[in-house]
């Protein structure tokens, strides 16, 4: 099963390296990993998708917390969430199929962002399934190139992942420990 983890990290040199090195060392498999800025300049946010059991996800979370630069980990899979991936797809087109491609774009709410004599570049965002089904439909027409950003994710509504509430708390149960009683 796929698990999505949102991770707040200090924006310091080498942090991405530490996270990737951890995954390699503990032989956890990464499906996708993205990293980017947040509204706070000192903090970056990673979205990590792994394929594994609940127990694997739990182990990964605890091991991420062992990295000093990891501030907060949120296991989003079992919470209401928004998950988005973005793809750019270059499709070969001619006069016979251009309108078919445009119709597909309409249905999937994708945008044509570049038009050339023999090709178009389509931008589509959505969850992974949506992008995959879109690509499947384009394949017979002729995909020349495709690039994806990997997923970014966020909890819905009240559910917040912030670094604000998290100060060193003596007496708390330590990073990543959930009492199971």
């Amino acid at each position: 099963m796929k698990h999505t983890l949102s991770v707040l990290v200090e924006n310091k040199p080498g942090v991405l390296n530490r996270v990737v090195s951890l995954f390699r060392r503990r032989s956890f498999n990464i499906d996708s990993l993205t990293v980017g800025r947040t509204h706070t300049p000192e903090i970056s946010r990673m979205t990590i998708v792994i394929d594994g059991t609940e127990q694997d996800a739990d182990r990964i979370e605890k091991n991420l917390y062992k990295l000093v630069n990891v501030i907060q980990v949120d296991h989003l899979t079992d919470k209401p969430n928004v998950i988005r991936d973005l793809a750019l797809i270059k499709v070969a087109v001619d006069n016979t199929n251009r309108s078919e491609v445009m119709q597909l774009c309409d249905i999937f709410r994708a945008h044509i962002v570049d038009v050339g004599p023999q090709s178009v570049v389509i931008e589509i965002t959505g969850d992974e399934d949506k992008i995959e089904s879109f690509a499947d439909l384009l394949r017979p027409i002729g995909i020349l190139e495709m690039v994806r950003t990997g997923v970014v994710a966020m909890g819905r509504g009240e559910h917040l992942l912030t670094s604000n509430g998290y100060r060193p708390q003596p007496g708390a149960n330590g990073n990543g420990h959930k009492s199971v009683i």
Partner: protein
Amino acid sequence: MKLKGAEIIWECLLREGVNLVFGYPGGAILPTYDAMTKYPQIHHVLTRHEQGATHMADGYARATGKVGVAIATSGPGATNMVTGIATAMLDSSPIVCITGQVASSYIGTDAFQEIDISGVTLPITKHNYLVTDVEDLAYTIREAFHIARTGRPGPVLIDIPKDIQNAETEFVYPDEPIVLPGYRPASAATEAEIERALDLIHAARKPLILAGHGVVMSGAASELMAFVEKAQIPVALTLLGKGGMPEGHPMVLGMMGMHGEAYVNQAIQEADLLLAFGMRFDDRVTGNLATYAPHSRKIHVDIDPSEINKNVRVDLGIVGDLRTVLSQLTPRLRPKQHPEWMAQIREWQDDSFKRDIVNRDAGGKLYAAHVIRDLWEYTGGNATVVTDVGQHQMWEAQYYPHKRPHTLITSGGLGTMGFGLPASIGAKLARPDEEVWAIVGDGGFQMTLAELATAVQEKAAVNIAIINNGYLGMVRQWQEFFYEERYNATPMFSPDFCKLAEAYGIPSRRVTSRDQIKAAVEAARAHNSGPFLIEFVVEKHDIVYPMVPAGADLHNMIRRPLAAPDMV
């Protein structure tokens, strides 16, 4: 006050309470060595190899519970530290390693003696730094010590380019509390966890405590004693847990695991409740996980959340500082006896006693087990013993009961041969009033024996006991059991160790029979102006019994035959 980076390093070390560092100079760390003149309060020990410096810092840390410091130059100096850092990592030993780096402008150019040591040590440090601005230096060093010693301790490396050591800045020692938003070591158990733990403990009929390194490191020895005396629960020790509770105490059974006592492993397999205190269910103590302690509920107390449910699924995981958690638990324990359970354990113990080599006549031969048992007797069981890795290490663990924490120093997790001698020097220099013995094999000793010169130069009065069996004995044992006695690459030539000692100006004795042990040990104990070396020429084909073959069930041990033909 304007100071150079090099001076800031020493200023910060002073403020961390450091008065002893171990190191080896070179180009990229020279400014720091030059600044040393101004800081006579800190004694620098020149080692003979940077690996030695890291093991000494580690020995220092394990003997005192304080952070040990090792210093090296860039490139080969830094890479020579790798084994020592990994050793400290796997045994959670707090050391800070400071390495010089080529000047910032050269970084990334494959400059002379440039190695990306923060990259190399990424997976074997708790955390590491490459300092890029002299303004950050004091903060970084302070943070490094904090991280090394708190939570689950471990090694931290600080790589400092040469230009940063030379750069000047206003030195203000930061005194506000260290805030690391992502670093929040645990401290105490929750009320619900305590209640659940008490329920499990009070319901148990065959409970057993598994005490590990965490007891020693969290300073929980007296808290554990109080817990045990009230709950009357027997205690099994891991290798690194030795000293956490005095062996000889009626509730302390002895060591568990691959070369643990058979009755201890039997007790683990039969227990209905395991209380794992500051240990991590390493494969060397569990054997086959599928058949491990099948009848028991399990409570695991550890400072590191990632250890809970890592190898063994537990019924209750408590993340916290063991000392704190024990003081939460003990006052609320209901005093209880477990007479049937104890009687059962004593019965198993009896059988082990009969098989024990120390209860048999040696028939004129010199067995390592007898050497160590006699050493224990003649040192009153009070020495700090530092071992190397191999059969002698296991015999030490079996035949030298320890009374106090920090008195057995050994490489458990990484099993680093060559650790013994340098770590013993670090331990002796850290605690000059302790009687320190290094028990090493003929193989491991030869990996780092260059540090004999360091011991002499520093007048470190360590007593070195070489258990010379002419083999890489532990590997030979595996070849005997599992590779049909094909002794490839394990017979080992050694120099005349006594002549070698003489070359270093170290007095020595060679012991070839049991009746010579006492005089040799006494001679060593009487010599306090520097190291003393004893070579014990022991049986070559001896075996560490009992043994759980790697991956086998914990209760299926290879036992010493009840009456070995050559021993009756």
